């Protein structure tokens, strides 16, 4: 029963990681870019949300309604101002640029919000739970998981059915051929990054509701998103979701074995997947 409980908690934790991983999978799939400041953007959005909630007394839903458009705008701006200049076959410029941005953002947040941990008041929702056959399941983690499934499903549908999704997949497959058929790659990239950071708006609200955030936390979120994407298999939205589940379950069971072993268990599962199935669980060889 104890292990079943760990499994359930792990799946719920995976729902949180999926919200980070989706944007990273989208950006890497389309542009072959990894945005090192991915985790710092989650923290930045969270801190903005918390400050607004305390200043104007907003509830979580109102914060969500502000943070998602703000995330979309920040992503669009990031692509226009920085990433469009460094996208290309050489991975070094984009890495260095987003690495510099990550250091600047982290320290800027440290200046504005200090190193303290903060969280978003949820009006009691964060502590409510239901008892199902001896296992307590928090209401909030269930909502997080449901939202993660909805986001994955919506993103997958968008890529498959809409005009923008087709343009994205075309630009991902062959950017020059896509440009010849009348797609403007830079506009497509800007929208892709906007969507990726917009999803982080959801992640920011849920992260600050379910635990605390501090300016230095971004690096861990980046690493979890990255591990989920690699475990699941690159370039697939559902792969990133399943990868998040695997990572969440590994950490959940690891924490149950020993509290000092939880995060390490996730890293070890990632390294085992890398050693035995480098294309990821759902990637094509």
């Amino acid at each position, binding site marked *: 029963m104890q292990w079943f409980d760990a499994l359930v908690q792990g799946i719920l934790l995976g729902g949180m990681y999926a919200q980070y991983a989706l944007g990273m999978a989208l950006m890497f799939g389309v542009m072959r870019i990894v945005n090192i400041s991915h985790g710092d953007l989650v923290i930045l959005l969270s801190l903005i949300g918390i400050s607004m909630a305390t200043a104007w007394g907003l509830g979580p839903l109102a914060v969500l309604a502000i943070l998602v458009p703000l995330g979309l705008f920040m992503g669009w701006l990031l692509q226009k101002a920085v990433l469009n200049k460094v996208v290309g076959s050489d991975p070094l410029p984009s*890495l260095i640029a987003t690495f510099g*941005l990550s250091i600047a953002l982290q320290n800027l947040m440290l200046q504005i919000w200090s190193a303290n941990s903060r969280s978003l008041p949820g009006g009691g929702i964060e502590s409510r739970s239901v008892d199902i056959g001896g296992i307590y399941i928090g209401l909030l983690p269930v909502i997080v998981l449901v939202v993660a499934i909805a986001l994955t499903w919506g993103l997958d549908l968008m890529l498959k059915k809409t005009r923008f999704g087709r343009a994205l997949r075309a630009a991902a497959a062959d950017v020059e051929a896509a440009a010849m058929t009348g797609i403007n790659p830079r506009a497509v990239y800007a929208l892709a990054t906007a969507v990726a950071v917009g999803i982080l708006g959801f992640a920011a609200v849920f992260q600050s509701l379910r635990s605390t955030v501090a300016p230095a936390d971004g690096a861990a979120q980046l690493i979890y998103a990255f591990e989920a994407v690699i475990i699941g298999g690159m370039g697939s939205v559902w792969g990133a979701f399943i990868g998040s589940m695997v990572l969440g379950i590994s950490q959940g069971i690891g924490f149950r074995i020993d509290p000092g072993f939880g995060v390490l268990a996730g890293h070890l599962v990632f390294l085992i997947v890398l050693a035995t199935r480098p294309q990821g669980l759902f990637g094509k060889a």
Partner: protein
Amino acid sequence: MTAISDAATAIPAPAVTVRRQTNSGRIAMTLAIVALVAVAVMPWWASTGTIRMILELCCYIAVAQMWNLLAGYAGLVSVGQQAFMGAAGYALFVLAQTFGINPFLAVLLSLIVPAVLAVPLYFLLHRLDGPYFSIGTWVVAEVFRLVASNLPLVNSGAGMSLRVMSQYSAFERNVAMSLLCAFMLLVTLGGSYWLLRSRFGLALIAMRDNPVAAASQGVDVSRLRFLVYVAAAVGCGLAGAVYFMAQLRINPPSAFDPMWANVAIFIVMIGGIGSIEGVLIGSLIFFIADRWFGEYGATYFVVLGLMTLLVALYARTGIWGLLSRRFDAPWFPFRRFLVDPNR
């Protein structure tokens, strides 16, 4: 075939000599040797405080040059070289403190650990593509940190102290630290320079410019990348062992501090990637900036981060790249010039 060989015999190859050194290179080499000797004899001219400062500068130079070799030549952008610094640092503490081996011998022995760890790690990490390789190296450094935090052999999260150093006088320690600094510079900078001037250097430069074309010319790109990765692990390990020997204390957060990746990237990108000169310029700038502006804390790092971002966007060759476009005066020349002595 006959036509080609006939043509080759008909026109005798002009008698050219290969010129590999320049005047600027000779001057720089002289200055470098003087500086190296000055570092080696620091206890006779510098105070303990100065020695510690120069030791820190030497560690920056060594780590930055190793990152330069990885990212600038082998195309391996690592953000996790602190894994090897911490591993060698811990190896030194375990060998000297727990097993009672002479600490100065232990510095050299501790280099075996990063070398041995780098081999399996490379075979895991090289499967990751471009940017994913970078974050993979970061995960490895995190794994090392978490393992060290849970390992009773290294006193888990509490860390270790190098108490055996108290059996030596302050002067003896300064002599050892100075000699180790000189050795570290000789191995990392001198070794890189020697490597770049050798046959491997030609292959490395070809690989830097275009890995696919280099492979088609017979360069074994994957083997060369592997060798560079292991060499950089050992170089960073040496810097880590020397740094933590001077610190006399080690614990998981300091041993595997991502700050080293930030510093290496800043130094190499500002100074100029793919050149030894750039590493020296960048190290000096960072060292001076750290002394002058370090007290501003977070604001200082915001500026460092934005500068790195701007260099990546607008000036990818860094300061040395801008300088060498105007003045052709390399400090460490490794190009080959064909000179016709009859002209």
